[in-house]
């Protein structure tokens, strides 16, 4: 229970507040202000994971987003499981429960390592490619082994109790990163009055100043941080977003910020006063200008067994000591290429622990920090490096030797020094991920030994993010880049007073990445480049030997920088190794590309409120409530909820779909049924050229359609393929009402506008969507006239009001348009009334309809009835490759219309003239009990060797209650000339159905019933 590595004083933790937590089933204690990582280190937990491929024990390496090993599965309850959380980024809270992501059955004694590095043999470099070239069935086996053994985190199996939201934000300047550079930038911008958002991914703002040794204005740096944050908090024009990671930089300065709102408080959001806050929030920021103050990640050196727990990057040592009051060991060896990393040794010494040696790759380093270390008696070994870490579950020593970095050779005799911690620093890589998301390729900077971002207009980088690592220079750079951004916004700012920094003179760093070993890389101890993906220097060397020369290929071959890691620690080292093997420079092997997201984001944060009931808008007709109350089952048609069928309860049992549909069909054929057809698209078309316009967008003729008449029309694209169909009624000489399919309404509307606005703007015509304004109630069946006549003043006499006429009048005492059109083949009236009268008209129909056994029916019955009549549904029986002629609908094509209407020319292309095009026909299964499967493929010869030539497919298929057998619509090659022939439908289960090609009109072929 005791925190053996916790210092008595110092750091930014609150020792008065002790928090309990559980890791891998064991209970520990930490303090408020800890991350899970700092608390684990305080408790002396060395092993936090098993590695992905080789199953090696792994410890904490870093202190921030770049941590490769400490990936944990968070959550004590099933519903709160979150995979792939970095322990270094997870604030400790009381009761936190976490376990290692990898490691089965446990991290201390891993089965995988006992069975002999199974993963390693299974997954050599190039594993993914080589495996995918093997039979697919083997992949399943590999995958099982990998998933079970390696574990990649898991999703919760229960519903997430939390809610999430999105916030659209606009600002003039978005500053990403609130370290010294970002703070200086934000302060500059704040004083100009522009709208500023400052976000930072850490638990508190301040960045490197939170563990800095430097003084600002002769005071600890955190005091300056507090003063600046105080001032920013006072500014109305500034929004501060701590715990907020800028994860993606998208087009035109659209940046997604992910704010963790309650993740530091508990595993689910705590109950607030009368509300529960959202767990996290996605800020969708559209920024005028963006300033990247994202800092740098320290690069570890690549040496043998550099993954044994106890190997850290140098800066992380300082962070744990100075910010969290945790010293992760007793005896330190530092291996470095630069002055700045000396801080780790000095911080270590300051808290009374032993620094065994500093191993500096440079000859005669002479900076001021070096002098300080020397003055304090630390042994400095020059021109040398740690070749190899010793130890199994924890570092026990380091082999050190003189090296020649340039020649990549060990030049001296190695000595082994005992230690329990090795800190290394190979320099600093600017965090250029976000700049990289914009597509701009970074460039190598030889002076700062790192890739610096190239920037698209409106993006600025400052400080370490562009290789300016010195604190004083960085502060000035932050202010200067903010001024540059403000100038672009035409909001010049006055200069701010920058704090006084006593900068220490630094000696030049040396370019050094992979440490040589006495043995060749392929035979020496493993040197890890990317610990998260278990990529070694040897793997990269192997990749280059196998001919992968571009770093992009090497990355794919080795999986370096894959997944949640995105190459934060390893990419540059990997490139340096590839460059060495290929005899090239780093910029010659390529640049480095990063993709969103910078760190993993939960699905909850991505979907926000757009889930469950709010996943997609639902559209209801004015009669929806009635349908619900009468037990309708619903079907989604686009966003509409349409009644699918209305099951009745018979003898205490609810009808099945088939039973209900058979009953509904017979009711329409033999009595009268009623359908809510309100979802049909309706477009009101007016203007002196409305008629001319219709003639151009429909295939058939509209010149002579008189007011009071209705016509069915086909609409094609200019390739001659059917896109939609429907009826259009002439309401007046210059006024028409077009109907479209339910799903096609919006598309047709846009189509009409497209042609009007871009091709024929000279036509005077206007389109208004009136789908929602009019409810449509279809009354159909032999008894329809009798029923309707009871509640309307319109003369329904069959000579006065003919098929394909429409009349205006009163229905149930409200104004209505009644259209005598039929989608069932029966006598039918479509009643259009203002939507808010719909329920009144509908219930009045039922009041009068009792004696006719008026039956409500849904979309399924509608489909069966229209299929019995061979009427198509655009989008079901057609798929964008079917012409009106393929449908046998030449009667609806005005070949001799004067204007070259849309689709006409295409009908005389050689392809559309082919005789063997797939044509719409009816299919009658030979076995009357069989209902063919929609989508089933059709062949002419079932005995043909596999693969059989497929000659068409079933587009619609139902059981027809009135006919007593299955019916189907299908497209068949040359089908119109094959009436009477037999076709075959081989099914997945081996059965082969037989069907006869027949006319697509199965019922009432002369069409007499709709004219009665």
């Amino acid at each position: 229970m005791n925190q053996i590595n916790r210092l008595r004083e110092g750091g930014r933790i609150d020792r008065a507040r002790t928090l309990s937590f559980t890791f891998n089933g064991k209970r520990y204690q930490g303090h408020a202000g800890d991350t899970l990582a700092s608390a684990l280190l305080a408790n002396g937990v060395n092993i936090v994971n098993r590695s992905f491929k080789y199953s090696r024990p792994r410890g904490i390496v870093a202190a921030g987003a770049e941590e490769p090993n400490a990936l944990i599965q968070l959550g004590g309850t099933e519903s709160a499981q979150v995979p792939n959380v970095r322990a270094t980024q997870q604030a400790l809270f009381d009761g936190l429960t976490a376990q290692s992501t990898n490691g089965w059955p446990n991290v201390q004694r891993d089965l995988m390592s006992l069975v002999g590095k199974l993963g390693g043999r299974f997954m050599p470099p190039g594993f993914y490619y080589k495996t995918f070239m093997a039979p697919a069935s083997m992949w399943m086996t590999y995958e099982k082994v990998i998933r079970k053994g390696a574990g990649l985190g898991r999703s919760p199996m229960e519903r997430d109790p939390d809610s999430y939201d999105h916030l659209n934000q606009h600002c003039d300047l978005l500053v990403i990163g609130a370290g010294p550079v970002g703070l200086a930038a934000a302060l500059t911008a704040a004083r100009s009055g522009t709208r500023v958002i400052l976000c930072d991914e850490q638990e508190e703002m301040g960045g490197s100043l939170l563990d800095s040794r430097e003084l600002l204005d002769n005071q600890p740096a955190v005091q300056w941080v507090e003063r600046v944050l105080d001032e920013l908090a006072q500014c109305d024009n500034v929004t501060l977003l701590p715990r907020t990671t800028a994860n993606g930089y998208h087009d035109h300065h659209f940046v997604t910020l992910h704010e963790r709102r309650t993740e530091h408080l508990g595993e689910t959001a705590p109950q607030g006063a009368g509300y529960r806050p959202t767990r996290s929030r996605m800020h969708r920021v559209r920024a005028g200008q963006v300033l990247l103050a994202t800092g740098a990640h320290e690069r570890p050196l690549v040496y043998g067994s550099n993954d044994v727990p106890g190997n850290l990057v140098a800066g992380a040592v300082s962070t744990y000591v100075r910010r969290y009051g945790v010293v992760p060991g007793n005896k330190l060896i530092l291996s470095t290429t630069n002055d700045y990393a000396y801080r780790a040794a000095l911080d270590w010494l300051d808290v009374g622990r032993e620094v065994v040696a500093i191993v500096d790759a440079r000859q005669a380093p002479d900076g001021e920090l070096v002098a300080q270390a020397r003055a304090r008696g630390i042994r400095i070994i020059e021109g040398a490096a740690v070749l190899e870490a010793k130890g199994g579950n924890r570092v026990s020593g380091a082999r050190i030797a003189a090296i020649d970095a340039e020649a990549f050779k060990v030049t001296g005799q190695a000595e082994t020094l005992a230690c329990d911690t090795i800190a290394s620093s190979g320099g600093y890589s600017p965090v250029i991920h976000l700049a990289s998301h914009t597509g701009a390729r970074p460039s190598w900077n030889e002076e700062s030994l790192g890739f610096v971002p190239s920037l698209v207009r409106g993006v600025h980088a400052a400080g370490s993010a562009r290789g300016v690592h010195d604190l004083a220079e960085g502060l000035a750079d932050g202010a200067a880049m903010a001024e540059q951004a403000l100038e672009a916004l035409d909001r010049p700012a006055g200069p701010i007073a920058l704090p006084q920094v006593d900068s220490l003179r630094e000696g030049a760093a040396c370019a050094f990445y992979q440490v040589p070993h006495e043995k060749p890389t392929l035979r020496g101890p493993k040197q890890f480049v990317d610990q998260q993906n278990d990529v070694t220097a040897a793997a990269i060397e192997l990749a280059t030997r196998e001919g992968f020369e571009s770093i992009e290929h090497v990355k794919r071959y080795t999986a370096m920088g894959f997944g949640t890691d995105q190459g934060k620690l390893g990419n540059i080292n990997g490139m340096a190794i590839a460059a060495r093997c290929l005899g090239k420079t780093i910029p010659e092997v390529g640049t480095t590309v990063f993709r969103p997201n910078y760190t993993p984001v939960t699905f909850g944060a991505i979907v926000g409120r757009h889930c469950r009931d709010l996943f997609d808008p639902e559209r209801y007709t004015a009669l929806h409530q009635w349908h619900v109350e009468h037990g309708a089952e619903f079907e989604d048609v686009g966003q509409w909820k349409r009644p699918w069928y209305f099951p009745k309860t018979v003898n205490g049992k609810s009808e099945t779909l088939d039973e209900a549909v058979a009953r509904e069909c017979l009711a329409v054929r033999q009595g009268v049924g009623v359908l809510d057809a309100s979802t049909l698209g309706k477009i009101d078309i007016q203007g002196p050229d409305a008629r001319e316009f219709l003639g151009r967008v429909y295939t058939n003729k509209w010149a002579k359609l008189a007011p009071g008449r209705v016509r069915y029309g086909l609409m094609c694209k200019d390739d001659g393929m059917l896109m939609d169909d429907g009826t259009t009624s002439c309401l007046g000489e210059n006024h028409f009402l077009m109907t479209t399919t339910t799903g096609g309404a919006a598309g047709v509307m846009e189509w009409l506008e497209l042609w009007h606005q871009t091709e024929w703007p000279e036509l005077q015509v206007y389109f208004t969507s009136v789908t929602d304004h009019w409810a449509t109630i279809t009354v159909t069946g032999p008894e329809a006239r009798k029923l309707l006549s009871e509640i309307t003043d319109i003369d329904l006499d069959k000579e006065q009001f003919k098929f394909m006429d429409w009349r205006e009048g009163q229905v149930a005492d409200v104004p209505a348009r009644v259209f005598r059109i039929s989608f069932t083949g029966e006598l039918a009236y479509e009643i259009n009334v203002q939507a808010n009268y719909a329920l009144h008209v509908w219930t009045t129909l039922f009041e009068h309809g009792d004696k006719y056994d008026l039956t409500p029916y849904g979309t399924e019955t509608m489909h069966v009835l229209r299929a019995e009549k061979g009427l198509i549904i655009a989008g079901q029986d057609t798929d964008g490759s079917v012409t009106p002629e393929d449908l046998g609908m030449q009667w609806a094509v005005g070949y001799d219309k004067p204007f070259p209407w849309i689709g006409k020319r295409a009908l005389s292309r050689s392809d559309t003239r082919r005789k063997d095009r797939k044509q719409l026909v009816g299919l009658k299964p030979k076995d009357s009990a069989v209902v063919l499967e929609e989508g089933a493929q059709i062949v002419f010869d079932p005995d043909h060797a596999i693969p059989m030539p497929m000659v068409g497919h079933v587009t619609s298929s139902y059981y027809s209650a009135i006919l007593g057998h299955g019916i189907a619509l299908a497209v068949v090659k040359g089908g119109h000339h094959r009436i009477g022939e037999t076709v075959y439908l081989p099914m997945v289960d081996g059965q082969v159905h037989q069907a006869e090609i027949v006319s697509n009109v199965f019922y009432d072929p002369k069409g007499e019933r709709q004219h009665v």
Partner: protein
Amino acid sequence: MFHIYCPYCEEHREEEEFHPKGQAHIARPEEPEACSDEEWGDYLFFRDNPRGIHHELWVHAVGCRKFFNITRHTVSYAILETYKMGELPRFTAEFPEGSLSEKVTTEAEAMSRQEGVKA
């Protein structure tokens, strides 16, 4: 997600409000019947896929419902201008920095130029 200036609404709006409709300035042949199959096929199916400046037809679908054109750079995705139907682009493959004969830039035209070009 693009930030698009609608030349009719005279405002920048989010891409979610717009639909892309393909390459701009594809004129329908005046006399389709006079076209050979090949010419008609070209009109129907063949589109440019340039690396660089591209003129595109868009519609402010859930805004003003107007169709208009965008000149966009297919590498940087920068929108160089948006312009109404019937107008001609100022930025073209021949004049990537803007045509020389252009008149004085109006404020709206300046607004329609999207930031984000590679500096």
